[in-house]
């Protein structure tokens, strides 16, 4: 390829953020005094100077076309002097200086099909990964489940009637590109069938020592197959982590009959009140049922509404469960406690109940 390297700039990094800040932010950078949520999805930040910056937050499916980005740009031009931003949870935010523009902007967003909300005691957009749209590892789709769940929970995005914040995340395999493991509710794609060894390809595609080394449970052994080096899987040692598949494409785990979704609850990342916590297993397995995964949707909705009905103000899912205790959670949620709920990896012993403090 003929590339003129002398003209070619590299390693100059992202554009400096300052050129993207609206004048009101430049003038009040670091001077904000407080904020108030005015209504669902709308807040005002007030500066020491008295300046008022209004934010309108709208939900987004994360996977968006350039047409949609251009729609956002049109709205930013119309109402915000051409400035806009995105949040860490894929929402789009419009920054306004004129309070009168809030309602027309919300109307335009609604016409575009984007609900306004996700601020305060609400569900924000679901952080998620690629799924069948773009990844080789996926045990389920990401966008389809997210869409189906949010269709059902949209009213909790556009209102602030929940007791506290609720953060849902989805990852379509244990690689967890979205690191969902500290969410109030985590939807996690899982494989349940050991890798199928494609002996003919493995020879060419993979390095056997690194494949063997990749397995955290030592379930992979080198063997000879028809006079050629390959590997075998000790199936009873396999926990379906797909680590081997990541380093070797000839060990696929994807399997329509066995792939599906697990649901985890009670994680958080914020330090407010309780320290950050991992999410814990609630429902070990729900088979994939596209296009709308009704079983996953109703399980998630049930958990949200159970928490909403029982938690105290500000109590996150995990704080509520810790207060009522896990046995009670399982009973209230109508989830059968099974062998799979008990950890058996490293440090599993730390998760056993080591006291006689039990509820009824």
């Amino acid at each position: 390829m003929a590339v003129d390297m002398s003209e070619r700039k590299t390693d100059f990094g992202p554009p400096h953020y300052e050129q993207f800040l609206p004048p009101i932010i430049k003038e009040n950078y670091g001077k904000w005094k407080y904020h108030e949520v005015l209504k669902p999805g709308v807040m005002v930040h007030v500066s020491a100077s008295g300046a008022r910056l209004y934010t309108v937050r709208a939900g987004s499916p994360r996977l968006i076309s350039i047409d949609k980005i251009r729609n956002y740009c049109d709205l930013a031009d119309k109402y915000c002097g051409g400035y806009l931003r995105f949040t860490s949870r894929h929402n789009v935010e419009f920054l306004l200086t004129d309070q009168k523009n809030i309602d027309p902007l919300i109307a335009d967003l609604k016409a575009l099909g984007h609900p306004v909300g996700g601020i305060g005691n609400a569900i924000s957009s679901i952080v998620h990964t690629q799924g069948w749209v773009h990844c080789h590892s996926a045990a389920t789709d990401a966008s389809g489940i997210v869409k189906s769940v949010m269709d059902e929970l949209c009213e909790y995005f556009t209102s602030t009637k929940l007791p506290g914040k609720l953060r849902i995340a989805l990852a379509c395999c244990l690689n967890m590109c979205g690191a969902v493991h500290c969410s109030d509710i985590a939807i996690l794609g899982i494989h349940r069938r050991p890798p199928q060894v494609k002996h003919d390809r493995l020879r060419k595609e993979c390095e056997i020592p690194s494949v063997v080394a990749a397995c955290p449970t030592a379930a992979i052994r080198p063997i000879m197959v028809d006079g050629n080096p390959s590997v075998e899987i000790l199936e009873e040692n396999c926990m379906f982590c797909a680590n081997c598949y990541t380093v070797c494409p000839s060990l696929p785990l994807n399997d329509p009959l066995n792939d599906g979704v697990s649901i985890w609850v009670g994680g958080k990342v914020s330090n407010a009140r309780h320290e950050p916590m991992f999410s814990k297993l609630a429902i070990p397995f729900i088979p994939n049922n596209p296009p709308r995964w009704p079983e996953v949707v109703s399980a998630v909705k049930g958990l949200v509404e159970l928490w909403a009905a029982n938690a105290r103000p500000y109590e996150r899912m995990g704080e509520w469960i810790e207060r009522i205790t896990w046995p009670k959670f399982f009973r209230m949620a109508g989830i059968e406690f099974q062998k799979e709920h008990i950890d058996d990896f490293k440090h599993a012993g730390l998760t056993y109940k080591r006291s006689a403090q039990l509820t009824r």
Partner: protein
Amino acid sequence: MAGATYKTPKLDELEKGPWPSFVKEIKMAARRSPMANDLLGQLEKSYTEKIGYWKHGGIVGVMGYGGGVIGRYSQLPEEFPGVSHFHTIRVNQPAGWFYTSKALRGICDMWEKRGSGLTNMHGSTGDIVLLGTVTDQLEPIFAELTATGFDLGGSGSDVRTPSCCCGKARCEWACYDTMAVCYDFTMSFQDELHRPAFPYKYKFKFAGCPNDCVASVARSDMSFIGTWRDDIKVNAEEVKKYVDGGLDIINNVVLNCPGKCMKWDGKKLEIDNDSCRHCMHCINVMPKALAPGDDRGACILIGSKAPIVEGALLSSVLIPFIKMEPPYTEIKEIIERIWDLWCEEGKARERVGEFIQRVGMGNFLEAIEVEPLAEMVAHPRENPYVFYEDYFEEGDEDEDEEEEEG
């Protein structure tokens, strides 16, 4: 538009309902892009057969960069030729995800010509993700991106694109300038970001306060969480207004305080700041009345990651408090020492958190020349199997005494 017209009854179901539909987005892009159109076809097949049809990523990239592009190929190139190559470009987002419409339109125009027209705003690490292009377009894409001021993000075993909360730009709680630090670190580590040379990935995330809006404690090898050392600022009048306005201050604030350090006598809020854990709860509930103190900085934590390979980790405290003032020399020196050690002794695909678990935090600290502190542990060890490195021999004690006296 050339190419097949697919019937997509399953995906069409996902156009219904109140939440914005990604299927509508793909269809919008498919009006002009055969790639997006074939994506629709392949995805419908996945929805029918309940399995994905992507091959393992291949190694593709632009000249001089080892990361930033993820190769992606369909397993069914004959059936869906438009996605036979469907590579992803990661573009380093501006700090805090602020944009002008002009900058975004520039990216859209380029991507209309040279890719599928589909994006993620944004990927999990923080990058702008451009989904779907072919190998021949990579250099022209890079040229057009750089002409508009954008550069590639990280991928593979390198520094991944750092990200941060909006910090001082729009949040009264930011205890340091997250966007400035994020930009500074991104610029300082351009080589590490673009040329994978580590055992595995290394992520930085910058949150302005303990609310940690960017989930740094769960999602970055090095988490910077803003905090303060002096007293919470209290505006007594505003506290009273919250209470008069109906706030149940006892149940919602005082009893929720993890430091058990707040008192409300019906008129006055008292905070025993020595016992405050800087959790943010009371400030979150009464933003007009309370604020973090003025002696602000950050707590730096290390090691969080998702389960692969050895299990998920949360970050743990490395530096309990440090002022975040440019040029951040002390912090960068520690980072360099961590990387030197981890590159030397880490195993392939071993994140720094797992490396620390393997060698032990005590040994790790010693190697990077950081003093152990009680703030670094939830509690001291319970297990008495201590690895002492030295033991005394007859006569040692006398020598020690002599030294002390001399």
